[in-house]
């Protein structure tokens, strides 16, 4: 397992700090927007992308991502269609790309077929929050490894140190540090307990890089994440941007606003 070939995710963390990973829902705001949004994000300066595979019952997501998923599904987004759209991904996008979604659609698509499709279109990793570690190790890992796909695990403020070590051991991409006990899109700001939690993670000297996500929405929360880990993940705040203005310029201004301090 440790002898996997380096992929784009590993290379990115070797080359860069303060990584900005941006999430958006496939087929949102319009069904055909997936690769367009991805390409605009890279141009605007995002370092990594997380493309949401919409699901009818996203229990770890707040209203913003729920709504975007619902809209994408109503427009006709499916995993089948997403992989078709992603066939032209690598003609336009060179940064690492992950797929994020829930386990049931992946299971119905077929795990092996899913991994093959990821490899074929150039997807580097996946995040499946409701796929348990045990299940992953027993039935998914060998297929993921075979196709060079990195699986990403989440940790939360309540995850025990032992379990974090276990997760670190079976990961080969990065660890997703959930900022507080919450679903996506919560506006809790940066609280004191949170910094202690970030510090605790930092001091664990994990072998995998870490990105902080959930509730990151602006330059300040992004910078705080970068102070403690390798960077941040933005989801709901970007979906809100897309719902207002999905133009290339709108996306560019959003990313700039996160990366650069406004004057």
């Amino acid at each position, binding site marked *: 397992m440790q002898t996997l070939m380096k992929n784009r995710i590993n290379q990115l963390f070797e080359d860069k700090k303060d990584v900005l990973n941006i999430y958006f829902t496939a087929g949102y705001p319009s069904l055909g927007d997936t690769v367009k949004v991805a390409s605009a994000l890279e141009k605007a300066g995002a370092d990594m992308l997380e493309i949401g595979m919409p*699901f*009818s*019952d*996203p*229990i*770890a997501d*707040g*209203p913003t991502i*729920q709504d975007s998923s*619902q809209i994408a*599904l109503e427009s006709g987004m*499916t*995993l*089948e269609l997403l992989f078709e759209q992603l066939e032209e991904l690598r003609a336009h996008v060179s940064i690492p790309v992950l797929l994020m979604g*829930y*386990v*049931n*659609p*992946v*299971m*119905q*698509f077929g795990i092996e077929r899913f991994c093959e499709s990821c490899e074929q279109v150039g997807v580097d990793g996946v995040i499946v*929050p*409701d*796929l*348990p570690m*045990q*299940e992953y190790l027993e039935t998914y890992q060998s297929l993921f490894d075979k196709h060079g796909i990195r699986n990403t*695990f*989440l*940790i*939360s403020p*309540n*995850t*025990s140190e032992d*379990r974090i070590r276990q997760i670190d051991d079976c990961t080969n991409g990065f660890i997703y540090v*959930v900022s507080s*006990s*919450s*679903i996506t899109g*919560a506006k809790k700001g940066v609280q004191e307990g949170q910094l202690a939690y970030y510090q605790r993670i930092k001091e664990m000297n994990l072998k995998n890089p870490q990105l902080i996500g959930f509730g990151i929405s602006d330059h300040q929360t992004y910078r705080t994440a970068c102070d403690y880990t390798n960077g941040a993940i933005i989801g709901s705040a970007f979906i809100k941007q897309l719902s207002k203005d999905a133009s290339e310029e709108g996306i560019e201004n959003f990313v700039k606003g996160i990366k650069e301090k406004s004057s």
Partner: protein
Amino acid sequence: MQYGVDERGYYGQFGGAYIPEMLFPNVEELRVNYLDIIESDDFKDEFQHLLRNYVGRPTPLYFASRLSEKYKTKIYLKREDLCHTGAHKVNNTIGQILLAQRLGKSKIIAETGAGQHGVATATVCALMGMECVVYMGEIDMARQRPNVERMKILGATVKPAISGSKTLKDATNEAMRHWINNPDDTHYIIGSVVGPHPYPDMVARFQSVISEEIQNQLQEVEGRNAPDHVIACVGGGSNAAGAFYHFLEDKGVNLIAAEAAGLGISSGKSAATTALGKPGVLHGSKTILMQTEDGQVVEPYSISAGLDYPGIGPIHAHLFDDGRAEFFGISDEEAMLAGVELSKLEGIIPAIETSHALAVFGKRTFGSDEVIVVNLSGRGDKDLETYIKWGKY
């Protein structure tokens, strides 16, 4: 045990704990502790005491002579409708609140479909002086209004689930999100044998008092401790799991599950999970699930809010897969007719969920000397508006 849960939390290929990491510490805390707690003397004493003196157990096993005559067989009704709050749901909420107390939790959340589980949860929270939030689909709040008001009188906060189909599935999503947001002081009382392991097993154990009593009561009246058939309706499947529990390994007992077929199995308006579903993951467990090709959960439909759910508990998925239980899809119309029939023949107005179990007599014949137990999971008070709207009585 062929039909019990295994060490990994599975029933055959179904079950497990498919949950986001944010819920892992809570579910793991439960998994590690639930058996020790519910098998401790102190827990058992308090549980038994409350079941007897607060719930009114044992509930009668009543020989329904006119119904038996009509269907030319021997039908007993296990009277869960006589439980305090009007359904079997309270057996589970008593068990879980005692467990929550022993885990040091101070707040309770729950989801509800028909409102029976919500009422049973609000009731035990009032009893124990604990804060209670119940999520209920907006559509269910309208069709089960008396139960919404009952929960409020009992001091609970009822929050509408406004996403998706606005029914039980969505109320469950909202309760899970609430738990992710409030992991430290809150226990989630799931109302059926669904959810991540250990919930299905835990809820089945709390409901297993039903079949334990059936064994003892049958022994007294029939001189045998097992019937030929047990019939129960299945939403998530908690009343069925409780009624089947002590007979699971006894192949001499035929298990019969009634699912809600809504306007008909192939009408596109149905909740007949085993007829329409395939293996998938929802609400933390792998089970049989109504879904599209693409793995999106299909919005179910049934006249009965308590059966209006696109999945079934993993134990029932296993019983179906293995052929251990017979499954029948019962339409709205068949259920309503069976509910009115019981009312006229035995003077018992059943919950519409329960009516689905009674409708099995119109689907299948039984031998004249066979002994059948129907789990009468609840009473129809909450459903008066639906009976009135339907009108054919």
